[in-house]
């Protein structure tokens, strides 16, 4: 699964780097290099379960405090809150308005 994710990842940016109101399409998931107490592969599975999966269109709705963390992201018809650290496992392609 990782291979598939990585090969698309080259074109995108990390979800964790996006600012408010940014819209983007998810192009891959890559949890390597993310500090987490979870087992390998677990973060990826949880992200998919919350709808953060290739092809989904997202929009950054709200940002927390301080350091604009965590972030609230609309994914199709629901809203997910996540920290930027983990959002960095989601590779997106920004949709220009």
């Amino acid at each position, binding site marked *: 699964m990782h291979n598939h994710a990585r090969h698309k990842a080259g074109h995108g940016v990390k979800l964790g780097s996006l600012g408010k109101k940014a819209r983007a399409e998810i192009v891959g998931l890559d949890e390597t290099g993310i500090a987490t107490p979870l087992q390998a592969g677990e973060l990826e*599975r949880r992200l998919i379960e919350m709808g953060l999966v290739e092809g989904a269109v997202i929009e950054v709705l709200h940002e927390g405090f301080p350091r604009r963390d965590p972030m609230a992201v609309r994914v199709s018809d629901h809203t997910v809150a996540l920290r930027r650290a983990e959002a960095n496992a989601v590779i997106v392609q920004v949709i220009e308005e």
Partner: protein
Amino acid sequence: MTHHKPPPPPRIALVGNPNCGKTALFNAMTGARQKVANYAGVTVERKEGLFVSPAGTRVKVIDLPGTYSLRARSPDEEVTRDVVLGRMEDEEVPEAIVCVADATNLRLNLRLVLELKKLDRPIILALNMMDEAEKQGMTIDAAELSAALGIPVVPTVAIQTGGVQALLDQIDRTIQVAETEGFAPVHAQCGWSEPNAHDLRDYHREVERIIALSVTSPTRPHLATHRIDTVLLHPAAGLAILLTLLFLMFQAVFTWARLPMELIDGGLTLVKGLVDANMADGPLRSLLTDGVIAGVGSVVIFLPQILVLFLFIQILEDSGYMARAAFLLDRLMGGVGLHGRAFIPLLSSFACAVPGIMAARTIENRADRIATIMIAPLMTCSARLPVYTLIIAAFVPQRDVLGGWVGLPGLVMFALYAAGILSGLIVAFVLKRTILHGAREPLLMQLPAYRLPRPRNVALGLFERAKAFLTRAGTTIFALMVVIWFLASYPGAPEGATEPAIHYSIAGMIGHFLEPVLAPIGFNWQIAVALVPGMAAREVAVGVLGTIYALSDSGDSLRSSLGGLLAASWSLPTALSLLAWYVFAPQCIATLGVVRRELNSLVWPAVMFVFLTGLAYLAAFTTYRVAVAVLGG
């Protein structure tokens, strides 16, 4: 002769994502009285109810904790997994599963349905909140959905009368089919195995295909939630609103509850007067007035305050605000190593640490969970309110500060709560830096759409609270008060005694025995007596003081209120020291018991007891010494 027991009723398990209205549906089906909330994972206990189906079958319903997957990430979700897989001890696998889905938000729910289908058991999909979906202009083709999923699909509106009729009819049909085909063997091998990322992507693609076939996007999407969140999740305004809300909550506990409390006080005085006027002086009259009315009465009087506190918590939960509070505080709480999700258990702990500690089950990581549990008793629970209120009323003058906006008693109360919170954060910080260190669990939490709390649900919740509190006052606390009255009355004073009789009683002896240990922190023997039963229930301490001082009263002073008595017999440093003690208050037996059960360990409750008692003693000692130095003994 052998008795044929009737076969056990068929069992239905309710499974669904958090916030899909599963608990509301459960209430609608069974009429059971329990909490309906909007925060991810509030249904931490297994809830069961019975209903009679339209065809006359008795059916048992189990309401399971909300989950996105059977891959159980938290102890909470493990319950759901174990029940539907039949892995739970003493628990047969349910005959059928009702998968509850929020119709306005189908994707994540349908993914769970696909996973549940692997179990190879009868499944019904209940499309809940259909009214909301229609309002948004969505069309859902239930027949198409049913054909695509290969299971029956019924629309429901849990909060409407008759809104679950179609579901009940379908349950009848499903049970009938299962009966004619014979129920599947109880521990049948099922086709479910933990899905990997590849399987999950397949599920996801399948869901997208099915949605394209049967669901149209909303033509009038619900924008209110986004607009409200623009303010409530604003980094500055949102935090300010959250703090204001909490502050208002604690002010309301005082101002709203004042009138009903005065009424209860008046009623108690009236009853005491009646008893005094109509009964001959003797042990029985003393038991009634000094033991029951002074003791139990001084606890019951706090019912209005506890209800106001729960009213706020219930409304915050039902409206969906709790998840926002977790969002707002995640980063700040992360500073001391706590998870944003710890906010909910901690806020519940202001009502009572026991449900608070149980709510910590939604925290997936064990270290994060232990840290949250360990500081839960530092959040001032409602049982400590009576102690605070009594002492504040007796020692803090009723004065307006900050230009009349805030009363001084309310401000002192807020400071006490703040002291608890602050020390909790410090303890968490130390724990997470030492024995419980490690990275935090990811947040990954859905922010549900805001919903107007249903007055009926809120009223039911408060009614349950009042009932539980009064039952406790009528049983545990009543029994303790009778025992205390006895200990405080016998043996009587010897001939030619100079002190009030209680001085010579068993309670007096215990108090005098403990006094040397507590003297350095300014506690007298009356307080020492009150602290012991206070372990069983903190609020009893107030009742004990009520009884002791009622019995100590020589009779020439006719002060009716306990507060007045205390103001006359305690020094201010002693009062402040007792307040400081109660911020940490070595918690009640019930709290220690639930910690032992939740963490399945004897070590953690022991650690908790020792560190809380140590902190309490230290805080009381410091407060007393500083107060004596500043104010004079």
